[in-house]
């Protein structure tokens, strides 16, 4: 009898909770959309996990979206993004796929909790472009990387980009240690991962790092600003009865940085722990 009671309670609890969780994110498209070759969302390898499958999905997307000839972007020294991507289809490509990273997605607008960040490198290993791919393997966005280009020569040397566009975990750890004034070791860190918000501080193409410590603290590192943050406040960000959210900037104190986390209906108000590099958004 007890077992039946427990079972009933469990069913009720799951029944109440699951729809609430499901509503958090946009509903994923049915698998058929990705496997049917006549569908606009077809990909050769739905939900790719292996590097080779991710690359094949990327090449398929380039063929579909951009394969109608290269372009020369007149006055720019940065290659046209389309040109870079099309080179990946060559037999002996000038550019090649470099590192591929999983980025956690903190926006309910995407159906899945991660995207792929694919780097494209030149023959010297310099990152020349980045591509964001959704979890099912669909092309999302891409951008040529301007660092190292002549345009930065007029800028203060401290603001120029180094060759390591996407910093390593150790780089981030060093920044965290410098900002806190104490040495932070790997043993103190529970989890480190790249996260994308709908924010200039950490986007799909240039994600932030989220560093969860064993002591319960969470820190964020914005590669763009070379800034380490701690969470000063979490503001509830509910929708009103019409499904509209309040403009988040009207909720956050001036001169604070912030990122929206629509999965948890929160705005994270971030306190700067170092001086960073304010000249770059």
């Amino acid at each position: 009898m007890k077992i039946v009671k427990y079972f009933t309670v469990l069913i009720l609890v799951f029944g109440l909770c699951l729809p609430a969780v499901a509503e958090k994110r946009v509903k994923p498209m049915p698998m058929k959309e990705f496997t049917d070759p006549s569908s606009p969302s077809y990909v050769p390898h739905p939900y790719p996990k292996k590097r080779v499958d991710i690359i094949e999905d990327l090449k398929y997307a380039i063929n579909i979206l951009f394969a109608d000839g290269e372009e020369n972007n007149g006055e720019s020294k940065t290659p046209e993004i389309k040109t870079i991507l099309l080179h990946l289809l060559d037999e002996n490509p000038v550019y090649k796929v470099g590192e591929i990273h999983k980025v956690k997605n903190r926006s309910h607008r995407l159906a899945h909790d991660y995207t792929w960040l694919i780097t494209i490198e030149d023959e010297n290993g310099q990152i020349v472009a980045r591509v964001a791919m959704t979890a099912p393997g669909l092309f999302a966005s891409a951008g040529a990387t301007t660092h190292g280009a002549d345009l930065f020569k007029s800028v203060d040397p401290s603001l120029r980009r180094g060759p390591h566009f996407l910093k390593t975990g150790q780089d981030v750890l060093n920044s965290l240690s410098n900002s806190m004034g104490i040495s932070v070791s790997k043993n103190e860190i529970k989890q480190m991962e790249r996260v994308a918000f709908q924010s200039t501080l950490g986007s799909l193409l240039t994600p932030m790092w989220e560093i969860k410590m064993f002591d319960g603290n969470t820190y964020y590192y914005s590669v763009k600003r070379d800034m380490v943050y701690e969470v000063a406040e979490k503001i509830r960000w509910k929708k009103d009865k019409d499904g509209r959210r309040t403009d988040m900037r009207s909720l956050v104190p001036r001169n604070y940085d912030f990122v929206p986390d629509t999965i948890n209906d929160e705005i994270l108000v971030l306190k700067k722990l170092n001086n960073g590099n304010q000249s770059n958004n």
Partner: protein
Amino acid sequence: MKTKLFTVLVVLILCISGCDSGDDPPFKKKISIPYHFQLEYNFCGVACIQMWAERDGQYWDQYYIAGTIGVSGDGAHPTAIKTGLDAFTSAYAIIAMREWCEPDAQGDLLAGAIRGILIDKPSIVPFYDLTHAVIVRGFEWHENADTGKPVAEVMFYHDPDPWEGENQALVANMLKDYYFTPSGGDYWIILPLPTLVDAGVDSHIQFILGGGTYYGGPSVYDPKGILPPIN
């Protein structure tokens, strides 16, 4: 002889007319815009104005533009960006706005931006709940079979944020569902000419007449009395 000449002329005209905008769907067109990254973290709108101005043949310093239009610590208000475009470029700019819950709100605005590209004019599109702005330099699109309205497929743009950089490409669905989405406010784009959104204005009015809720534009919706700037 005359027939041959006529045929050659027809072929030539067809070739020329098909050069830029494409004569087969998806249509595509890109315009050249010199790239400048933003010199301050709150200068994204300012850098967009600078790029647009240089496309129109004039070079203006970002700090001068910022001083002229007024930029707060958080960035330039959309109306300031419009003022800057009117002052420093050949645009007669308009802030085209749609309610967040209007049917195809984003599509209406992007259609205006595509029409702008067709007359060689950029637009400025906000990202990330109006906290950032980029300058649009091209599209791939198709036309709605019933309405003829251009429907964006890929958007090409320069992002003044140097970490994102120039020559960006974004699939339209991602633009609509992720980058563009103001979670709380309205959708808007700064277009080079008011006439580009005529069709959109009609649908906006129909939406309101049909009982749609009008919350007001970005300068009106301001629950704490703080105008929402963008950077």
